[in-house]
């Protein structure tokens, strides 16, 4: 099904800030029947039906590039205008106020909270430490009953798993901003955050098989038919 035809000028802008798996995100968005554009152009980003901020790599490098290029202001404008803004992995972390990854760096500050390193814990059964980065497939949980109703996660089934690869995680100050949680080695943290039109996934929907594509489809369907996330 092609959602683009339902929307006016409906393309998804994938923000190119020289960090991360832009092409993998691009292929997944296209597979969902959407028009995707990899871009660092302010006007093209501001004209998009939805904006994705992907990313793998270091928080400080990413912020440095966003500030130097002025894309930090563009992305804040996107958020303020009510256009859906979707951060993925590092992109989710960049939405937060600040990160403690290798020192202290200010983020975009769209969702209040910190980014902290995943703790190393000892498994009481095996006596072995957990690995960081957290690489692999995990189940998402609803932080509150009904939290996924009407959201991009509305079609998730109990056994569905999504793919994570990260060493840091976001800790939103307001629990209402947490859309989904995940537990890794006994530690529970935010797997997805959302405040109105701003959404962040710590996992990679584009690498999460049919379940991930279903999340993108659900997300873009709401965007392009209702104009909101």
């Amino acid at each position: 099904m092609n959602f683009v035809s339902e929307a006016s000028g409906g393309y998804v802008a994938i923000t190119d800030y020289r960090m991360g798996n832009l092409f993998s995100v691009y292929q997944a968005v296209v597979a969902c029947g959407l028009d995707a554009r990899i871009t660092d152009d302010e006007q093209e980003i501001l004209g998009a039906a939805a904006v994705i901020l992907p990313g793998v790599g270091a928080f400080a490098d990413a912020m440095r590039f966003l500030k130097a290029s002025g894309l930090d202001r563009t992305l804040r404008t996107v958020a303020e205008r009510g256009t859906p803004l979707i951060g993925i992995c590092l992109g989710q972390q960049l939405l937060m106020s600040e990160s403690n990854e290798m020192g202290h760096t200010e983020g975009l500050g769209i969702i209040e909270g910190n980014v902290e390193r995943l703790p190393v814990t000892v498994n009481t059964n095996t006596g072995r430490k957990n690995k960081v980065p957290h690489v692999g497939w995990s189940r998402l949980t609803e932080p509150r009953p009904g939290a996924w109703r009407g959201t991009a996660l509305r079609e998730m089934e109990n056994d569905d798993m999504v793919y994570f690869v990260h060493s840091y995680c976001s800790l939103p100050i307001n629990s209402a901003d947490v859309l989904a949680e995940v537990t890794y080695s006994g530690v529970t943290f935010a797997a997805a955050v959302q405040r109105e039109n701003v959404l962040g996934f710590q996992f990679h929907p584009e690498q999460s098989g049919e379940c991930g594509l279903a999340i993108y489809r659900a997300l873009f369907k709401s965007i392009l038919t209702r104009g909101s996330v």
Partner: protein
Amino acid sequence: MTIRIIGRLDIKGDNLVKGIHLEGLRVLGKPESYADLYYSEGIDELICMDVVASLFGRNSLTDVVQRIANNVFVPLCVGGGLRTLEDIRVALRAGADKVAINTAAINRPEFVREAVEAFGSSAIVVAIEAIQQPDKRFTCFTDCGRQESGVEALAWAEQVSELGAGEILLTSVEREGTGGGLATEFCRQIADAVPIPVILHGGAGHVDHVVDAITEGHADAVCLASLLHYNAVRRLDIDVDELGDDGNFEFLLHYRDRGFSKVSDATVGSVKAALKAANLEVRL
């Protein structure tokens, strides 16, 4: 932690090949046919390895990777002959999510740090291809298991994790392609010593070997080729005339239905069922 089952596609030219000890390459079909099949059957990740690239100093994998990435939405790792940051950029642009580096890292360890700084830890996998020496130590080999580096595997694993590598892909070259079981003891030494995930590859000939890799070897993921390919080769529709010329066609032309005697019958599903039966968590 959920155990990942990773399919490994060794590629020569446009063809999926399978060797023994990384040598003697039998053509098994088109890599994208296998990728699509494994994806539809629930593979957790795929690794595409250009098995001769490092020997000839070339990168021919881009088109194959692009064809796979168009249809496969699980993590895709690409390796073989990646020597520069530009090589990595090209692989990621083709749709890879991660790259595996071996020869270039051994030749110049700082390359690992530079790659991590440019693309992030999660995109950089260091492939360690090791052979046990008469003195019992495992040393690293480069150029598809042909060149001994003299670098000791455990020390190298610790060094690359300090340099920022996101994962280690550990291959026991002498077991690779034999179906005789994975190098569980060797894996345990490495997996217990480094803070990053270790993927064990080489030698799985039975679903029980995969279980052993996790329970005995402490691997975080297992990478499979023969165990899956020799079942898939009988189920896939393969037109030999459509394949490229690279590799040895003897198997595909004459022995395809027989499979490979050293490897029992398995699929992604049967491997995961065996792990689940052993109380290990898998994605079904």
